[in-house]
């Protein structure tokens, strides 16, 4: 009897401990999201209005050339950034997994860039890419006079400067996540594979990688979130320029929300982003929960 009564009591205290967090989530996140969606259907400009304007803000949004360009940039950035971070992170993780000496030192070095804020990262890479200050200047001063590396001033290549800077920033995190996954792989497998004469690269791609599904999808979700919220690094690095070459949706939203006094349009853009994120993230989350339940059943 005593033990039975203990159950609900613990749940009560646990729930009351969670209550503040729950309230914060409810008020700060859910309510704000609902409010944003509501505003996106109004004619609000500088101040929020409570009238109904139908889909007019969405029509304005999708006829806005800059928004279309921004969405293309996000996809462009997302594909190269996620693929690059996974490949780079995996290679780093495999390297650290080789039981190298001073493993802790390497791990810290690789993860260190993640501890730097996006703004600092953006500023540093802006200097690195600046043809009159950074890499190009160094190459030239070392004697390679014809060296040219002015991607950041180029309409077509500037977005890849952002990709490189963010890869440098995030590859270490992917390494840490994948390394944790690698450490969970049974070492006996490698011994068995070695007896069979399987080369090491084949062991990693065909035996280890398929077992890392859940770990990889965690990394992908985290990377996808940083694709969507990409803002500070771009502002610090290029401020969307040259022209609109590195402009991204969240910068469009912030510009319209504040400088351009277009709350309605900004809310429509935010809502569109939210739906986009849900469409991308939901299948991944579903796949992950499926693989988890499958694992617990087997």
């Amino acid at each position: 009897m005593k033990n039975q009564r203990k159950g609900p009591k613990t749940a009560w205290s646990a729930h009351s401990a969670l209550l503040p967090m729950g309230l914060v989530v409810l008020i700060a996140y859910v309510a704000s999201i609902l409010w944003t969606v509501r505003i996106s259907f109004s004619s609000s400009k500088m101040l929020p209005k409570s009238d109904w304007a139908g889909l007019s803000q969405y029509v304005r949004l999708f006829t806005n050339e800059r928004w279309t360009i921004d969405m293309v940039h996000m996809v462009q950035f997302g594909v190269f950034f996620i693929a690059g971070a996974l490949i780079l992170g995996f290679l780093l993780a495999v390297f650290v997994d080789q039981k190298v000496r001073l493993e802790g030192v390497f791990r810290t070095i690789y993860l260190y860039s993640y501890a730097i804020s996006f703004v600092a990262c953006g500023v540093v890479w802006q200097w690195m890419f600046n043809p009159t200050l950074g890499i190009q200047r160094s190459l030239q001063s070392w004697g390679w006079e014809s060296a040219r590396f002015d991607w950041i001033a180029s309409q077509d290549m500037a977005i890849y400067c952002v990709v490189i800077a963010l890869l440098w920033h995030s590859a270490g995190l992917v390494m840490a996540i994948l390394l944790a996954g690698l450490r969970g792989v049974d070492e006996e497998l490698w011994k068995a594979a070695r007896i069979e004469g399987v080369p090491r690269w084949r062991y990693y791609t065909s035996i280890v990688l398929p077992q890392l599904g859940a770990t990889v999808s965690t990394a992908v979700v985290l990377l996808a979130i940083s694709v969507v919220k990409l803002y500070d690094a771009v502002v610090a690095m290029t401020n969307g320029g040259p022209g609109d070459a590195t402009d991204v949706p969240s910068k469009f939203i912030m510009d319209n929300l504040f400088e351009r006094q277009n709350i309605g349009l900004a809310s429509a853009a935010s809502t569109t982003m939210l739906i986009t994120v849900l469409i991308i993230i939901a299948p991944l989350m579903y796949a992950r929960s499926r693989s988890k339940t499958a694992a617990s059943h087997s």
Partner: protein
Amino acid sequence: MKNIKMSLLATLIASLGISSPALAQKAEVIHWWTSGGESAALKQLADGYNKAGGQWVDNAIAGGDNARAAALNRIAGGNPPTASQFNTSKQYHELIDAGLLADVDEVAAKEGWDQWMPGPIKNVIKKNGHYYAVPVNIHSGTWFWYSKAVLAKAGVAEPKTEAEFWTALDKIKASGQTAFAQSGTLSYERSTFSAVLLHMGGRDMYMKFYGDKDANVVKSAAFKTVLEKFKKLRSYTDAGVAGRSWNDTTALLVTDKAGFQTVGDWAKGEFLAAGKTAGKEFGCFQGWGPKAPYMVSGDVFVLPKTTNKDAIAAQQLLAKVITSPATQVAFNMKKGSIPIRPDVDASGMDICAQAGVIALKDPARATPDPSMLMAPDIFGNVSDVITKFWNTDIKVEDAQGMFVKALASN
């Protein structure tokens, strides 16, 4: 994204009715004057207010956008500051329409604003017959600055006509120096465009473009020429343009690495900080000829409406102190701008500021800044076209089409 949520949260909390009571004559002022020179200037306002018996509560927020966003959130949420800085523009006009700003008619009548306030400023602070903002200073965003050393090395004198300006650029370029220093940020690409439009296209075309949003002007051959000239300037810039801030760009002139730059008179602070004197190491001109248009911009403080009697008293005192002759001179000497009042002593100012004072007195020369003529959202769309045209190889005709579309956007 996080910022959006934070500001929404702030609005939400504010709208729940949490407000702090204001004390007697205590004025909380939101502004974005945070750099060395700016805060030295602001101190003159605060000192003036404190001397007049008030208590200045400083609320500095770095960055104009951030400061305005914070003020808007608090005004919309019902917990407004005593006063808040805006640019002398249409930025706060929606607040007037929503009935959220107090008028300053009493101070304006006592000081006779109707008689002496420069036209472009008056038009944008007065709406429906009432004054809704307290102007602090007058800046001009389209000055031309030049390094005398660079011009001397190329063997050219200060250009007195547009043709001489282009010749000077060619000669500086031929001498192996950077002829035109340009910042890589959208605001300053836009200000260079405005300078070209105003000084090479003329005041009429400028007013029709920004003021009347006239599509026929954009389609005209004369406007096409302006666009071509704007784009031609790009061929005189250096390789380090991308993302460069206006002050790093001015530094090129300060260190004699580039010839010309067109930027507002706030650039003067950079020269002064490096120990240079106007007319000696660097020069300034505001277009060509004695009738060159003079673009006027500046800052104002708006006074959000409140029912708190102490806060109202504080607002009235603030309006009076800010526009008083003594504060005006003290503030503007430090800020690099010129006073809003014509009846103050300008003899202590440098030659550039004095030229500005003279230009301002001629209504045919004083021209409103684009943000006084255009609402922020259309202005934003126009800016997008400017930066696109400047940075890419799109055809002039296509740019004209994009301008027509941007002017019609609403």
